């Protein structure tokens, strides 16, 4: 009962925060004909009257279409689905808060995330900000701009016991070092910002430094809570990234996903400059309830999978 109340309270506070700012709450479909092509995100397939469809891995494309049509700041509380993600901090169906600020960038958005969390968590916390590149230099003496794969692998070998480094690509090394080494040193809330361009995802590159993307993540201790961007508004570049993802999928024998042409069309007709962020609500509840199992904050588990761990 307490965890249900806690979730209900959290949702109320989130809505109060955005209603106060006059953001529009939206509700976009969870089932679609296309999906996210990200190489590291697997969609759950559904069958709709015999046609292949996908459960959405985030409401991002749908919300951006609404942004193009309506040109006002939006927020949404919804579920998202990702196949093959299950563990102490992962559940294949999870809850998200996602919002978009029209006319702002990732730096202003980071500030807003901080304001929101301080308001809903009721006790002001300190938020540390650190740049991705600086963290690697400080903790691992790695200069990402030099992009030396052998050195990356060496650092992985030094810091992670029992791993075969030979199959690791540059970004695999960075992911592992960030999550299993650097993030372990974080205390409380930490923003990491300016990600390498190779991990831009749907973020715009920094106009002053194209090696970096205008992307941030928020951690609580070593737990990733949120991911935000200055959104990419360039339709051509967006299509290029989707195709690059699918090429990588093809090369590794993974399923290739149909591109979201409605989303690409919307981008072509002009996405207003905006910044957007997704915040994991199950994980936020874990932090509030001091739980170390995402499973324990869910209202029900209906997936019928064998016990993890």
């Amino acid at each position: 009962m307490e965890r249900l109340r806690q979730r209900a309270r959290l949702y109320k506070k989130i809505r109060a925060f955005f209603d106060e700012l006059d953001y529009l709450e939206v509700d976009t479909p969870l089932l679609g004909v296309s999906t996210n092509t990200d190489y590291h995100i697997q969609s759950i397939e559904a069958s709709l009257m015999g046609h292949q469809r996908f459960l959405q891995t985030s409401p991002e494309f749908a919300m951006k279409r609404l942004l193009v049509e309506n040109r006002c700041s939006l927020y949404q509380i919804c579920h998202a689905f990702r196949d093959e993600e299950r563990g102490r901090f992962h559940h294949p169906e999870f809850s998200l808060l996602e919002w978009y600020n029209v006319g702002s960038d990732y730096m202003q958005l980071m500030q807003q995330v901080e304001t929101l969390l301080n308001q809903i968590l009721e006790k002001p916390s300190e938020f540390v900000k650190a740049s991705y590149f600086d963290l690697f230099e400080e903790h691992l003496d790695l200069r990402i701009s030099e992009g030396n794969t052998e050195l990356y692998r060496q650092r992985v070998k030094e810091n992670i016991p029992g791993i075969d480094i030979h199959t690791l690509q540059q970004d695999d090394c960075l992911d592992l070092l960030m999550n299993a080494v650097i993030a372990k040193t974080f205390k409380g809330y930490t923003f990491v910002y300016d990600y390498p361009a190779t991990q831009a995802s749907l973020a715009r590159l920094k106009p002053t430094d194209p090696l970096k993307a205008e992307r941030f993540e928020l951690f609580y201790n070593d737990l990733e809570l949120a991911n935000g961007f200055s959104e990419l508004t360039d339709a051509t570049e967006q299509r290029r990234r989707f195709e690059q993802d699918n090429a990588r999928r093809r090369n590794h024998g993974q399923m290739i996903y149909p591109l979201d042409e409605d989303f690409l069309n919307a981008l072509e007709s002009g996405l207003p400059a905006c910044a957007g962020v997704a915040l994991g609500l199950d994980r936020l509840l874990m932090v509030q309830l001091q739980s170390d199992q995402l499973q324990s904050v869910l209202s029900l588990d209906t997936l019928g999978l064998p016990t993890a761990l």
Partner: protein
Amino acid sequence: MASYSTNEFRGGLKVMLDGDPCSIIENEFVKPGKGQAFNRVKIRNLKTGRVLEKTFKSGETLEAADVMDIDMQYLYDDGEFYHFMVPDTFEQHAADKNAVGDAHLWLKAQDTCEVTLYNGSPIGVSPPNFVEMAITETDPGLKGDTAQGGTKPATLESGAVVKVPLFLEVGEIVRVDTRTGEYISRVKA
């Protein structure tokens, strides 16, 4: 032999690693929202007992190990091998000293132990959590001292040495927790 992908990893799963049978103790799924997933596992080598940490890229597979834990009755040791029997089938297995390890301190004929078989041969033995054994050697008991604290070493029939209360005598039977090696109680014959 079957194999397991990282998303099937869980505590207790028996897999082959570098040619040795191992048991997964703990499996942690690590994945950034937008990046490569890894499984960080703690794994016990069932031959050496050593625990190691391994990190796998998610999607990698390990071969299943032909390992089974079977309840067997302990029969006797012949100086070289310890002999066990599956009660239902009377099938017998001989475990060498390596396989038995420290469990030999808690083996008593007819007790039921869990024997771990790898490719049909014993590689590990877990004694029952509690055993009852006779004291074969200890200092004479102090009459009247039945309640006060104070312990003395006593050797049991298996050769194990445990701390027992001062009033106990040679020939008495005691109940011992094999996981801690601690005396639990006296057993009235």
